[in-house]
């Protein structure tokens, strides 16, 4: 029988955190940002069917980076949690705060007790009646939870995107300009790893992006209580190209 070596808890946690960070840094970034019309979720994702963004409930959206199988199971668990809560209480009793808190507990217990931590970062967004009641939670692989305001960036090279967004984010933007802001912030990472030919980064095309929005008032605009709406490639192409016309 092999002898177990002593590893201090500090070292153990540090190793796990480094492992998870490395996994997450390999992934492409996701931006969630609030604006006048609601909340926009923008992900760099070349796959049209393996989503990083999802609807959870009426006013709640989900965004993730990292390993697909891990965040997909968390996404489905979140939908089940929200649907059971909404079915047994009322649709109004489902909140992003409750969901973020069960995610935090689940991520935290996997981080400390399982063989390997989840290599994921999640964002849970709830659109409010006005921009001040928007809720934006960001969850780390270790279960730590942050209540963000205005916008949040996850994934590899988040600092570059964060830095770009801090200059360009605007509270009064409509969806079109908020999405363009997010896309140009995500495109900033391409010059960092590209050739850097001095002409600025090449912007991401609609085919490489996954975009969804949470409408602030879906009942009057679309006659439904479900705020989540995917922006398809054609619509996204139009939104992105209208920036060049300005």
């Amino acid at each position: 029988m092999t002898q177990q070596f002593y590893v201090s808890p500090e070292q153990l946690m540090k190793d796990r955190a480094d492992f998870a960070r490395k996994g997450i840094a390999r992934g492409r970034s996701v931006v969630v940002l609030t604006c006048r019309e609601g909340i926009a979720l923008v992900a760099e994702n070349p796959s049209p069917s393996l989503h990083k963004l999802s609807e959870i409930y009426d006013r709640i959206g989900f965004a993730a980076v990292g390993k697909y199988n891990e965040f997909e199971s968390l996404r489905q668990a979140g939908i089940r949690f929200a649907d059971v809560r909404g079915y047994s209480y009322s649709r109004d009793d489902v909140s992003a705060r409750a969901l973020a808190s069960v995610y935090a507990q689940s991520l935290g217990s996997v981080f400390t007790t399982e063989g390997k931590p989840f290599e994921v970062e999640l964002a849970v967004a709830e659109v409010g009646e006005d921009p001040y009641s928007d809720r934006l939670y960001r969850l780390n692989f270790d279960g730590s939870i942050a209540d963000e305001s205005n916008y949040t960036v996850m994934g590899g090279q988040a600092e570059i995107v964060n830095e770009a967004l801090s200059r360009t984010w605007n509270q009064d933007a409509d969806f079109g300009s908020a999405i363009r802001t997010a896309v140009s912030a995500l495109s900033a990472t391409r010059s960092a790893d590209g050739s850097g030919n001095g002409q600025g980064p090449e912007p991401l095309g609609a085919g490489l992006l996954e975009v969804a929005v949470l409408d602030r008032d879906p009942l009057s605009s679309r006659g439904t209580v479900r705020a989540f709406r995917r922006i398809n490639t054609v619509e996204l192409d139009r939104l992105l190209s209208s920036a060049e016309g300005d």
Partner: protein
Amino acid sequence: MAPRDPAASIHQAPSSSFTDHLSRHRPELLPSSRSLGPASHGSAGELAPQATTIVSLTYAGGVLMAGDRRATMGNMIASRHIRKVFPADNFSVLGIAGTAGLALDMIRLFQVELEHYEKIEGTPMSLDGKSNRLAAMVRSNLPLALQGLAVVPLFAGFDTQRRAGRLFSYDVTGGRYEEYEHHSVGSGSVFARGALKKLWQPNLDEEDAVRVAVESLYDAADDDSATGGPDMVRRLWPVVYVVNSAGNREIPERELQELSRELISRRTAAGLEA
């Protein structure tokens, strides 16, 4: 210990069905999990309000469903305001006759079932899939149906693949039957069906289809005491939904009021006994 086959866990993966999830983890929340205990003699049906007539008919480009506003308990009117036709999702509606309490719970569960699937899978369920899920729900209610608490739905939707409106009826054992042209369920269904046979025509336009539905419910209310007619005093009109390629839409009360008034004045002018 035998080596574990990782692929063996595939069939145990969580399903996309909300009902399956509930029955595994929160069975007490399912409407069908209610039990009346060992089969009591006599029927529980007289203790609970009963929802009555629903009519459904196809028209050019879609399908329509309408229900009256009455629930009865024995010879009493339990509710004048009850709504028995609901949207199931964007492209389908369902109406339910039978024990009102169980029916409303079943509608709520069915709505969550469809929405849950759509969110988990990222794509809406097919119309046949929806009608089969509803059949399973009706079937799970069979023990209660045998004790007098039957729930009989009528399901209609727009089939986005076939580009046509379709409707389905059910029996208490979960039997699913596709109906053509028109159908009705509930205590006044016999009279409504008689009216529909004379009033329905192929390729009705939407306005005429709504008129036919309102008139057939009027005829049902005329002969069946458990079906409520248009209530001029309280301003209560039938609930009518249409489903077409653009999704489902509730007909506004204003239009139904106009149609009901017009129908009543036409019948008054005719002055006939039947």
